[in-house]
């Protein structure tokens, strides 16, 4: 399931709901992204997260479909927020549920790595010098690239 929303989410509630009623699930893996108060050694206040409505949902849906194809998952969830966020706020949740831990952990890792390089979101950080658009990092591209190979667990 994909959700793109301005509102915060309740982590415990989301994870419980993901596995509710399916006793074939042996493990749930999750990743939660948070807003930091430092970026490149500089103090950062709030940030604005901009997105491309329509394309965002389309890309997230495709990334999720790819995970479902590669790993035996009983359920998956991607929540990504947009709008104004403060340090400490939750930005993103990726969660996967599977009979076994390898599939849950690997697919969760895959989802967050792919999302970071493919989903159309942009961060505008408040800094002492004014609003700064965050630059994409090469390391994110490298992290995503390793998943181009087939997973070893299959």
């Amino acid at each position, binding site marked *: 399931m994909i959700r793109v929303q301005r509102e915060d989410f309740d982590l415990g509630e989301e994870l419980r709901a993901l596995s509710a009623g399916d006793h074939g699930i042996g493990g749930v893996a999750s990743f939660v992204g948070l807003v930091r108060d430092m970026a490149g050694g500089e103090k950062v206040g709030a940030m604005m997260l901009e997105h*491309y409505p329509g394309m965002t949902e*389309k890309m997230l849906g495709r990334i999720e479909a790819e995970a479902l194809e590669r790993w035996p998952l009983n359920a998956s969830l991607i929540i990504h927020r947009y709008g104004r966020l403060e340090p400490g706020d939750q930005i993103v949740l990726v969660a996967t549920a599977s009979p076994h831990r390898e599939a849950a952990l690997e697919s969760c890792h895959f989802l967050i790595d792919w999302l970071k390089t493919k989903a159309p979101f942009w961060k505008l950080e408040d800094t002492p010098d004014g609003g700064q658009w965050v630059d994409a990092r090469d390391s994110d591209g490298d992290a995503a690239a390793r998943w181009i190979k087939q997973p070893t667990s299959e």
Partner: protein
Amino acid sequence: MKLLYFAWLKTKTGVSEETVSPPEEVKTVADLLGWIKQRGPGFEDALADIEALRVAVNQEYAEMTDPVSAGDEVALFPPVTGG
């Protein structure tokens, strides 16, 4: 054709969305970027480094050689930084 600009593309051009009718010789993404660029200093500045841009046609990532046509929605934005 609908053009959308995000992040610093929007800041530099001063436009978030516009409807345009490029001339007939604009057939590819590369043609379109070349045409947009000569529309004024803001556009020229925003599109100065084509390598730094990503383009989506009808909400799909596109290459420079991909075709564009009148009814398309074309979005220009920097590499994404979500997550």
